[in-house]
């Protein structure tokens, strides 16, 4: 087995307050390149909170998150942002596209911020991603001119913009009909299996979760079970 690209060790996330709440409690897991992982569990079990910790969007109260072998606990907010920009791609339940921007501009945002490509390169990659996701004719539309499934696919394209090693998705099919949900899920599966990206998806939907290579079940903030489903 190759070295883990993303790893959590005894990660805990606790919210302070009059009544402290533990969102994630001592979670440990490691993910290798090409792993296609789903995280399931009842509402409030800590699935999304774990994903935010994996995505370096939130910081653990205890434990460690290692990205490509590098501990992230001591990194500043700018360093974490730089890692999110170049190594991670996030998709959320709600597409969270910027309403004022066209599809093309939404996808270009991470690329423009990273500034690895020139203007022509950014345009070419945005068009390539949309073509691959079947949205080539939607380049100049704004999000309100797209269907729910199309918006979510644009969000996937945006997450892929900087060619990240890891894709994290928080219930990406939660607001889609069955056909669109399977479409989006297939895209994620292909990213893991064909391109070797580590894809971690939080989902409620058991049938979709069955398609993943690794399934993590959470309960009360703890990883109840983590199992490989396919040989």
């Amino acid at each position, binding site marked *: 087995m190759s070295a883990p690209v993303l790893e959590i060790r005894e990660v805990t996330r606790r919210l302070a307050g009059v009544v402290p709440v533990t969102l994630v409690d001592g979670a440990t897991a490691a993910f290798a390149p090409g792993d296609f992982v789903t995280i399931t569990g009842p509402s409030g079990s800590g699935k*999304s909170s774990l994903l*935010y910790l994996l*995505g370096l*969007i*939130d910081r653990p109260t205890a434990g460690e998150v290692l990205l490509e072998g590098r501990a992230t606990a001591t990194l500043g*907010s*700018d360093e974490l*942002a*730089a*890692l*999110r*920009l*170049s190594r*991670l791609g*996030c998709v*959320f*339940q*709600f597409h*969270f596209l*910027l*309403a*004022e*921007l066209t599809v093309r*501009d939404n996808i270009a*945002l*991470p690329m*423009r*911020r*990273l*500034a690895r490509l020139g203007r022509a390169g950014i345009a070419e990659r945005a068009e390539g991603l949309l073509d691959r996701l079947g949205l080539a004719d939607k380049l100049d539309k704004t999000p309100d001119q797209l269907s729910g499934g199309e918006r979510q696919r644009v969000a996937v394209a*945006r997450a892929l913009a900087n060619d990240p090693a890891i894709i994290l998705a*928080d219930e990406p099919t939660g607001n889609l009909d069955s056909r669109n949900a399977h479409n989006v899920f297939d895209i994620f599966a292909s990213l893991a299996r064909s391109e070797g990206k580590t894809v971690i998806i939080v989902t409620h939907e058991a049938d979709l979760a069955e398609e993943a290579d690794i399934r993590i079940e959470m309960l009360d903030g703890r990883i109840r079970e983590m199992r490989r489903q396919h040989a």
Partner: protein
Amino acid sequence: MKAADLRLLADLGLSHLARRRRQTAVSVLGIMLGVAAFLVISSLMFGFQNDFIRRVIDVSPHVQMLDEYRAPPAQPALSAYPGAAVEIVGLRPKQELRGIRDPGKRLAEIQAMPGLNAAPSLQGQAILRFGSTDIAATLIGVEPELEARVSNIERDLIAGSLGALKTTANGVILGVGLARKLGIGMNDTLTVVSPTGAVLRMKVAGLRKTGITAIDSVQAYALLKKVQVLLARANVVNRINMRLADVTTARELAARIETLNGYRTESWEEANQEILGLFIVQRAIMFSVISAILIVASFGIFNVISTVIHEKARDIAILKSIGFFERDLRRVFVLEGALVGIAGALLGAGLGSAIISALARVRFEMDLIATIQGFVLERSWWLYAIAGVMAVTVSAFAAWLPARHAADLQPVDILRGGP
């Protein structure tokens, strides 16, 4: 920051402003009016002030030696016992004949200095009487040939000539304001009464108009000898007036001459320090008022940016989760404020410039501290620069306050909340 980064942040800022067109327009309008008001008021004020200063420099001596001392002479007892507790009782000042001692020698010394001309004069108060009108005036005795080299009196004459003081028996040149008050014209004869009671009939040989009311309605010129006789001060002069090639050296030269001669010697700035001080107060008031206008206008920007940040909390969260830095978000909103400021400054410059051009075409005549025929307007690039810098700074600052809040937003708090 790289140009590409700036363009990206500016694009995001512009997209927010475009979304709130009406509020943005109101904010731009506020800044525009503030900038236009600043330009018009400062153009009027600086125009008038600078014109007044130009006229003062033009018609008054650049440096003037007076027959008085800046500080009373030290008492011998104080000089003899420096640092001792000396009390002088029953002091009676020495009665001295007023006037500059040995004026010929001092005049020659001053005239020998490079870059200046000097002329003596005797100045005193007199009553001018014409018909039943008595007016108090400042009577100035001059030597026409020398005076012509230190003042523009010849140029300012609207009737007669400076030389006519010599060719006309008991000739006098009156300021136009004085002549108007007396109801007198060229070649008319008036009576001049000195404080000592001496009376002289004099003929109007010239009328002078400088445009400065305080001069035109008060001063009258006659030959030095005539004024010395009238004021019973034979061979006395109480002023040595100087005109410099470079007016900016007046203060320094006045100090040097005062050190050499002991007599109080004033530069044009010191002679007019009260009015120049008033100008400074005027400028301070103007800048305060304009700053207040811009600050009020900036509340509009604060409001727009605060609203945008409130509305765009989700976008801010997503941008941060994508990998935008906190400072990027701060810059987006500060840029938005600055863009509103730039738009307001540009439009305000256009509006202000149009109003100034319209005011420049208005003609009227009015006697204030100077006679004006219309608005005197200053149209310097630096006024536009000050207005622009103020507008953009105030706007960016107004945006920076809420922008800090945007940068501090935690994406996880918002992402958990849903759409």
